């Protein structure tokens, strides 16, 4: 089709103009398709990522204040936040080391409890009784319920 067009006498010059114009336009469109993702990529996230550090939302803080504990997400981990006897915040992995159930805090007994097989942990994650083979891994927690609360990974710099 194109070859038959090109052989028409006198069509050469205007054809060349058309090609040049389209070429320029499509180049711009193509460049836009490349530049758009890059610009979006460069625009920073509002919460600044959060695989190593997470800041609690107001709703989470309220839940933590009311229930005495909260399960939050940090990257791929479930993290248990609790208020200890001195109202200090503590954070540890919420995944029971026995069968991987999510643990809960029992404020009345001052223990972290896994309902699946009655595993009991101290507030610092140590195993008190039951089948869990290892303590719960600790996470860092900074701030208090009046201000911002951030949870971060173990020894993260």
């Amino acid at each position, binding site marked *: 089709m194109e070859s038959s067009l090109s052989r028409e006498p006198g069509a050469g010059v205007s054809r060349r103009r058309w090609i040049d*114009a389209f070429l320029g336009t499509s180049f711009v469109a193509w460049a836009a398709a*490349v530049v758009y993702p890059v610009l979006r*990529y460069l625009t920073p996230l509002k919460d600044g990522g959060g695989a*190593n550090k997470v800041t609690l939302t107001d709703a989470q803080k309220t839940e933590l204040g009311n229930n005495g504990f909260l399960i939050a997400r940090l990257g791929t981990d479930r993290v248990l936040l609790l208020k200890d006897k001195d109202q200090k915040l503590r954070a540890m992995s919420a995944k029971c080391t026995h069968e991987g159930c999510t643990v809960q805090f029992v404020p009345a007994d001052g223990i972290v409890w896994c309902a699946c097989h009655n595993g009991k942990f101290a507030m610092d994650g140590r195993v008190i009784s039951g089948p*869990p083979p290892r303590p719960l891994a600790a996470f860092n927690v900074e701030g208090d319920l009046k201000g911002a609360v951030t949870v971060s990974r173990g020894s993260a710099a």
Partner: protein
Amino acid sequence: MSATPAPRNFAVRAWEAIDERFQLSGLVAFLSHKEVPVAHSIVWYYLGGLSLFLFVVQIGTGILLLMNYQVGENTSYESMKVLVGRVPFGWLIRSIHCWSAHLMSLSVLAHLFSVLFVKAYRKPRELTWYSGFAMLGLVLGFGFSGYLLPWNELSYFATAVGTDSVKAVPVVGPWLLRVLRGGEEVSVQTLYRFFALHVCILPLVMAGLIGGHLLFIQRQGMAEPLEAGHEPAKKKGGMPFFPNFALRDLLLWVIVLNVLALLAVVLPFGPGIPGAEWELGEKANPLKPAYPGIKPEWYFLWVYQMLKEFPAHFLGMEGPQACLLLATVLMGIAFFVPLLDRNAAKGKPSPLFTDLGVAGILFLGFLTLKAWDLGVTVPKGKDPTADPVLANTIARTAALWILGIGIAVVILRRLKWKHSAFDFTIAVLLQAALNGFAHLSWLVSGGIALAALAAMAIARRMKGPGAAAASVLVLTALLAPPARAEEKAAPPATASAAPAGHVAEASWPADFRKMFEAAEKGVPVLDEKARARFQALPTHAQELFFAAAKAGTLSGGTHLAALLALDIDDRKVELILGDNCFLCHSNPDLPDEILFRKREKTDPLRHLDIREVVADVHVRGGLMCAGCHGGKPTDLEMTADIGKRWPSSEVRRKDRSWIPEFCARCHSSSEFMRAYNPSLPVDQLLKYRTSKHGQLLLEKKDAKAAQCVSCHGVHGIRPPDSTNSLVYRENIPATCGRCHADAAYMKGYTKDDGVTPLPTNQLEQYKKSVHGLALLVKHDVGAPACNSCHGNHAALPPQVSFVSQVCRTCHAANGGLFDGSPHKKAFEKHGWPECETCHGKHDITRPTDEMLSDDPKGLCHACHAKFGEPKCDETAKYFYASITTLRTSHEALGHDVDRLAERGFDVDELRFQSSAVNDALRKTRLGIHTFDRSDFTRNSDATGQALDGLKKGVANVWKEYRFRRNGLLLATVLISLFGVLLYLKIREVDRR
């Protein structure tokens, strides 16, 4: 330049302004005078430019990745997770970077081989070849260093294995390994080094080399093919580089960019073949054991496979060392091709080198195909080559492929280009065939193939000159083995002076020295190993040997050799030497007295294994043979005291009731036991008397009843927390089962009613139960064993009323809910056990929702039909309907999440939500134990809410998926349009 687009006037003026200042028209004139040879193999000329383009893509995407990537042990993996999962288009940038890296390696390799085939390396372009070869090395370095940066499991282990091969380098290997890793092991230091290498050092060196490479090409122009089918290249005048060839380059780049985008969206984690996949997976954990099947990137697979093909030792070298040498020789031949190929240097055809190139591809291809485990399907993390049958299948399939491809290429070359030199190809195909079909090892096949190659070379030489390269190769191959064989390992030097902590050899007593140096028929009784063992013993142990030699309890060289041959630690050697019972009764020179020797399977009870006895908790605590048997450890003869502490041998075999009392002499005395283990209970005998076993033994004098020794063993008793102990949690089912699963042994024993025979299928049932699987298969020592329900020393069959109390120790919540439920009263009325009624006892399986169903097999329905009211059945139906609805929607959403993960989405958030639904669902199931509708509904409603949240999350990600797909479609249309117009432009320019 005449081919500027529409706003001609402005563009022309701008060009003139720039040209006036920088005099660029000269450069344009140079480029337009430069010509690309037009031959039918012109397609090969694009590969260099393509590699350059892909490198530029790498630089661009690499810089973008750097803006989010944070190198560090706790940040590398995490920042990649955020980059891929949360940063807008982060997945696209990373995926393009990975795809482009692999395509660049591919295109650089293709470029290299195309240059090899057209002999463009020949004089005067040797330096271009060398610089290109160096750049190939850099590209591989880029791949290797970049692989580690995400700090995930796969990359960690692949780097550990990959760097480890460096230590095979002679002399500097270990040092090089430490420098490369930044320490002994792959650690965060390695990560820092690889990062610096990947983003700074390698790019700088690469930029320099690219500059040189391009400069050489500009100065010398492009090479013309030397032998495109033996016809001398026709001078067609060539194609101007600019704009004709440059526009074609541009078109190719546009197409490649489109392909890259397409691949990145459709297969974001790679094509899924070993060595070309980049799913993040799990974070690297240096403490985790490596799993089989770890493979490097595809371009290293041939080395990886070759390492596997080499035995531990080869021609006096270590396997990896020999392998590295072979790889170096092969790479060296490729590198020095411009020097080796004399004919091409003179401008004459060199068909053997064309064949060498083809054979090289087939050689690498065969190894790579083998490394891909072609022909067998294996689950991830398994190594099929461990199974010889599978390994043969892999070799056969790979050989089949290579032979098919190889023969097709030979036929094509013969018919199309009239090639006649196939020596190397034949050798490589021969090796593949021998390895794949005759199941000879890869090395032996290679040796035979080399011999065949040598034979062909000699035959060729007889006919006439030529094949210099072949003879060089054959010579190196034939000369290398004898040269290597000369490297013999020097015998280990014997230490003459004793190091600190040992008695110097000069001061050994004469009588001992005689034993040490004893010889029989000229052969020393003590071998090298035994001598070294003695020399390594601490002073105290050595002195005990001297004392025993002096006292005569150590009788001679044979006895000494037997003691030194025991594979036990120093402390245990001292225990044996300190006790004359051990010494005399293990003496090979006194065959009638011997009690201890290495245990043989055919005669397990006649002799005791001395290694077992010295591992006994009592012996290690100082309670030696004499402690139970009587006499003193220092006695030199058997005294009358020995054997007097228990009844005579006839009586004690018939009536075993003396045993508990005998052990209890110490074990019931808190005063005595305090000295050894104050926390050990001392009430075992009291409890034992109340147990079924105790009653049978002590009251009915039943010698078959279990006593201390039956469960704890005799010689070689370990503390219960030792995994070798018969009463270690995991070993208890087998220990109890030794009697209770033996129908013949248990014959005649009945339950309390005195009539019902005691079953013997408990162990079999337990092994299949959820608890048995947890304890014996998953090694969860929290899972209950026999003694958890039946007790230890006070072993009794549990009563209906307290079985459920045992269950509650772990299943506390269920018990609490059951206590307030209507079932509690009903069960009590019927005298039914609580948990056991529904869940069983030894054969408890994982409960299913189907237990609630109104199917005749459903548990509730069957019971309620007999004993319950109609409303009970209704409640069960309601529970079943609610739970199955929730379960089905959760499963469907889980399936959706998996599909999204396959499409390259970060589904961590969804999995987090899904685990919350799982927790809620578990709580709902737990709530059934209240057997109360309102309690249950509270939990099932909460599950419904969690499920709704997950549903919303899944819907959002699907929306994002559609956005990506449509975006890709739009981008593809735009790029295709640009490509088509570019094509038209090229035709137009060509016509002018």
